[in-house]
């Protein structure tokens, strides 16, 4: 049963557009899938390899801008951004890896934090490419209906899931976790830690960038504060994975479901106005306090009270 669960969920999701959900609900589902991909991307580097990044907006934004600039300057479809951003992000990851991966722990996290901000400032100022704060708008949308957008991001999500699973079951996966657990020990066991950390960063960056490129195509508009925000992308990415469960296959997906729905639900509560952010924050603190390994990681702990009642 457990083995077929991913397949069952996938088949059910394939049928989702036929249920005739409202445009808004489809939009929320697509957001969940985008966040799943970003979360899975972050999880490779932060969850499995233990290199916590606070700058994943950099990868997301560069992916989005690759699409946008291809459309704006080259006049070709923004969908080309999806394949092209792979090359761009590989190059970016290598550069970032070369600079940041020689740092460890909190210093690496801080350097990535700076990186996200550098990208935002760069996007604001490289007006000839990015049109600065005016942003890039795709004037002719591919589809008005959400169905095809849904299928495309669904396949990206499934592809990412399978890729991660394959990677983590291979030599690479063992090396990533070994580096997370003890970098010096890993080094003395013959693991070229710098090299494998760079590979992890590349995988992570490309996955996040593809989500960004899709976002550009889907939303049709980006500006520096949408593509490279510190809170809305970088921090939320960390939260998605932490809430769902770092270093688990399903953590980022569950985290994305919870974060997107929670944010949407709390925002639409009546009478609270701007207090929704506060409530959101409190709920997150409670989750992190009582489920430090995330919902997937602490699933057993979460189920305990229910189990007891049934037994009594």
């Amino acid at each position, binding site marked *: 049963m457990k083995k077929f669960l991913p397949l069952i969920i996938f088949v059910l999701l394939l049928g989702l557009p036929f249920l005739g959900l409202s445009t808004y609900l489809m939009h929320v589902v697509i957001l969940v899938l985008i966040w799943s991909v970003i979360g899975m991307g972050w999880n490779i580097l932060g969850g499995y390899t233990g290199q916590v990044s606070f700058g994943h907006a950099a990868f997301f934004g560069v992916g989005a801008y690759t699409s946008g600039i291809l459309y704006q300057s080259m006049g070709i479809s923004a969908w080309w951004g999806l394949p092209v951003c792979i090359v761009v992000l590989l190059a970016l990851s290598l550069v970032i890896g070369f600079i940041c991966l020689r740092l460890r722990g909190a210093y690496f996290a801080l350097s990535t934090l700076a990186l996200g901000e550098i990208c935002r400032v760069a996007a604001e100022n490289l007006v000839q490419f990015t049109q600065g704060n005016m942003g890039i708008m795709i004037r002719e949308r591919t589809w008005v209906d959400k169905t095809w957008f849904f299928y495309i991001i669904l396949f990206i999500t499934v592809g990412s899931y399978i890729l991660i699973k394959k990677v983590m079951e291979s030599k690479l996966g*063992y*090396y990533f976790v070994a580096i997370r657990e003890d970098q*010096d*020990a890993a080094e003395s*066991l013959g693991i*070229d830690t710098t090299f494998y950390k760079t590979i992890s960063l590349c995988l992570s960056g490309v996955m996040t960038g593809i989500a960004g490129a899709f976002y550009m195509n889907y939303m049709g508009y980006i500006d520096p504060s949408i593509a490279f925000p510190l809170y809305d992308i970088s921090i939320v990415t960390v939260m998605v994975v932490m809430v769902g469960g770092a270093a688990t296959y399903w953590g980022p997906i569950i985290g994305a479901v919870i974060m997107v729905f929670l944010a949407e639900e709390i925002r639409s509560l009546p009478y609270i106005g701007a207090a929704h952010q506060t409530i959101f924050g409190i709920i997150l603190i409670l989750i992190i306090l009582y489920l430090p390994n995330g919902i997937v990681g602490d699933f057993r702990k979460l189920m305990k009270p229910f189990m007891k009642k049934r037994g009594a």
Partner: protein
Amino acid sequence: MSLIEVKNVTKKFGGLTAMKDLSFVLNKGEILGLIGPNGSGKTTTFNVINGFYSPTSGDVYLRTQKVTHLKPHVLCKLGVARTFQVVRPLQRMTVFDNVLASAFIRTKTKAEAEALVIEVLNFTNLYEDRAIISKGLPLGKRKRLEIARALATQPEVILLDESFAGLNPTEINEQIEIVNKIRTQRGITILIIEHHMKVIMSISDRIVVLNYGQKIAEGTPGEIGRNPVVIEAYLGEEVCA
């Protein structure tokens, strides 16, 4: 035939000289003990051989190749494995996965690596504990896990840093048996740091004694036990009596 040669190595940390013009040779197939008081530079010597530190001056040779400034993972590929004094298992991984992570270095497929892991775990009597998360392992077994991990890299020489410290007498005997087996059955050369005199005297072919980063004596266990300089610096009067 010399497998590892440490030649005139000096290592300084700021004003502190941890190794001072140290030279010794590790011959192929032998067990060489490295002893000395705390802070005499034993672990620093390991870290220099293993590539964690670059020496301030002097060189390290593996066979005839100069390996002075190579990184630990390169040295591991060349056949030098080590264990750590303070055990460093990959905490949240099972015993099996711990060894598997280091078994990939000289195997091509995962199946091949897994077969090697099973063999190594049997060799070190850890097979029964393969599914335990290594954080929960008692110290004795964690010390053996360190050895198992080093063996999984299929080394030519293995550096054991206090693999006997903190073990009870039963565990010590078991550990001695494993160390002897590593040499007799696998033909691996061993350089070992140890404070446990009974152990070091019984398993070493030769012993090098350090004090303040310098070599003060070298010889067979018998010679070392009688050497007045060693007795004064390290062993104390009672042992020689």
